[in-house]
């Protein structure tokens, strides 16, 4: 059964410990700009949204890659880069819907999440359980998504009433 990172952004506090843990593990230093996931913080409305690799039913990074360097593992369903084929054209960086594929300009390599070989550091450090690793559980994700949407809609409504 393929495992994936799933996200519940109603739980995320925006602490970015996951970014720190990811870069500490993969780069042996603390450098959020090289983390394989990204917390998008909306400070003005108090919402934080973790962007992680997957779950992508159809992976644009795979589709767009001109040299077939970006591929999907048939067993884990995870996408990965075959570095021998990668020509650093950055197409995948632009195509990723979550914005979590990056070019490390120092080592000149495409970097992306590899699920830490099945033992994700981001999940282990996340204090709130906002990121989990397991078989995709779509229904609950959708429910929570609804809750957040309602919250945002309510705020937009009140804001526009205030203006009129």
């Amino acid at each position: 059964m393929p495992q994936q990172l799933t996200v519940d952004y109603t739980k995320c506090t925006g602490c970015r410990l996951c970014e720190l843990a990811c870069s500490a593990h993969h780069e042996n230093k603390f450098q959020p700009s090289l983390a394989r996931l990204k917390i998008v913080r909306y400070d003005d409305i108090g919402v934080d949204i973790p962007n992680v690799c997957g779950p992508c039913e159809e992976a644009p990074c795979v589709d767009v890659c001109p040299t077939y360097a970006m591929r999907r593992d048939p067993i884990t369903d995870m996408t990965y880069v075959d570095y021998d084929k990668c020509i650093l054209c950055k197409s995948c960086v632009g195509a990723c819907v979550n914005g979590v594929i990056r070019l490390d300009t120092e080592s000149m390599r495409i970097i992306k999440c590899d699920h830490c070989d099945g033992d994700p550091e981001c999940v282990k450090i996340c204090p709130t359980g906002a990121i989990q690793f397991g078989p995709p559980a779509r229904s609950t994700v959708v429910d929570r998504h609804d809750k957040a949407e309602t919250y945002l809609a309510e705020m937009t409504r009140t804001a526009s009433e205030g203006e009129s």
Partner: protein
Amino acid sequence: MGFGGYQGTILRVDLGNKQFKEHPIPKEWIRDYIGGDGFAAKILFEEVPPECRPLDKENKLILATGPVTGTSWPTSGRSAFFSKAALTGIWGESHVGGFIGPELKYAGYDLLVIEGRCEKPVYISIEDSDLQLKDASDLWGEMTDTTTSRVRRLEGDPDTQVAAIGPAGEHGVRFSSIIVNYARAAGRTGMGAVLGSKNVKAIAIRGRGAVQVNDHEAFVELAKQAHRRTRENPQAQEMSKWGTWSLTATKQEIGELPTYNHRTGVFSGWEKISAGYIRPRYTVSDRACFGCTIGCKKVNYIKEGEYAGTLEEGPEYEGLMAFGSSLGIDDYPTTLKANEICNKYGMDIISVGTTIAFAMELYEEGILTTEDTGGLELEWGNKKAAIQLLEMIGEREGLGELLSQGSKNAAEAIGPEAEQYAMHVKGLEVSGQDGRTHRSIGLAHATAARGADHLRSLVTVDQLGYEDVAAKRWGKDKLPEIIDPYTEKYKAAAVVETENAYCIRDTLIVCWYSVSWPPIFWMEDFAELLPLVTGIDEFGSVDNLNLIAERQVTLKRLFNAREGITRADDTLPRRFTKDPMPEGPGKGQTVDLDPMLDAYYRRRGWDKETGLPTDKIIKNLSLDWTRDFMN
């Protein structure tokens, strides 16, 4: 550079000449001062002499980080601003959460020192090594939230961390703050006015580099354990859920919830400004500072009533106190609204709230009348009047003009009959504690370098009765007195030891909430952590850390001594020493400050008569160099 944790570089911006300069951090500074508060004390002492007034262009403003800033150590996302304080004219510092400190580190700098003055409004833009002063004429006059949004757009990167001042800082309101990312306030002592006097509207920072520690693997392992400890700590769990709001109920229970301008410590309307009431009704999300497991920040939304549509982080307990119990207001939405106004204008909620409480008491006493207030009826509990007066202070209009100078200056202008109602020490308004029901905070308020400060040496172990912790730290022989909040005995010992530990906390820099109620981390943990981060083995000795802390406390004292501060200034408002607590568990209590001061100076090696550091202690702490800078 060779030391882990540090970037090894101080960035200086000279506004007059529009120049940026980078300097290496001297190795001895690291050895003697560690970072954060320590570096700032060294720089301000050497470079900001007594003849320089806070709003002169010669004053400097420092944004500092420490060696763990930007790492995964829990609660290490904080940073601090330092300057000669606009509010008090003495040592000024203000710590702030959020993300700007780590970002400065990722950009490659440990410290930012802002010097001189620009002719026209600018904002400082730091994007890794791309350093610029950018025109901010269009932003001048804007509130901090608009400023932050616009600066982020101008910088073209939503991950830019922004520290901004609002109209209060521009107008020289003495207790104006610097607001980081909309809602995190470097509130105290008037940092906003200093930045405003330099014509700097904001500081925008984006860094993409790395922070590296000395022993990565061991550090990561220790940090993981530290996170586990934090997560399992019952107090930290409470903080995650309720933030600092849970203090309202605790304070009410022990009779130390400042009410009616600190007249009493019991507030009949406390429930409506307590955690259990607020969270289910108003809280929409929990947020954290960078790298924090606790996440004590609460975003709140008001659905109905006069302030419907208000969406704002906060306020902390201190704001609930300053705009709630202290003004006799039992209404959470009013405190949230006040917090929003404070954040937008860039004003310290503690100081401005306490100044409004002062005005309300003067109104009650007939010292201020509707003629002075422009028709405002400043009765206790008048929500509308409190909010209106707050805005007038932000704009420096009418009575707001006088009050924007802080309660000490306002009292001096009004006359001697007003002075006893101004709740301040050395010009800094008293925070939400009361020495009558907690003697050690009486001593802490009186002796802290920046004035009535609750964050540099607030002992919590005594008040909350943690007997085991007290026995371990101070010795069984000092029990039970040392944990009895109603006696002066042994309180100097508790305050000095706590102040030393907090001093190291502020050099690292880590959050207050990782060392409080009772601490998750203390000196021995810092001694384990620091060598892994820096590679400096000497930091592994608690004795050495104590020595560094003593050096720092004494250095700040010397800074203040140069401004004329002596024992005579280490006082408390009359109310705490003369008027017995009128009701509640602490009924009848007052503070007897002198014996505590005697003991405190003795422990610090300062002269008992003058309160000034003796030659001997100056020598022992290797502070001889300060003599070259004394008057």
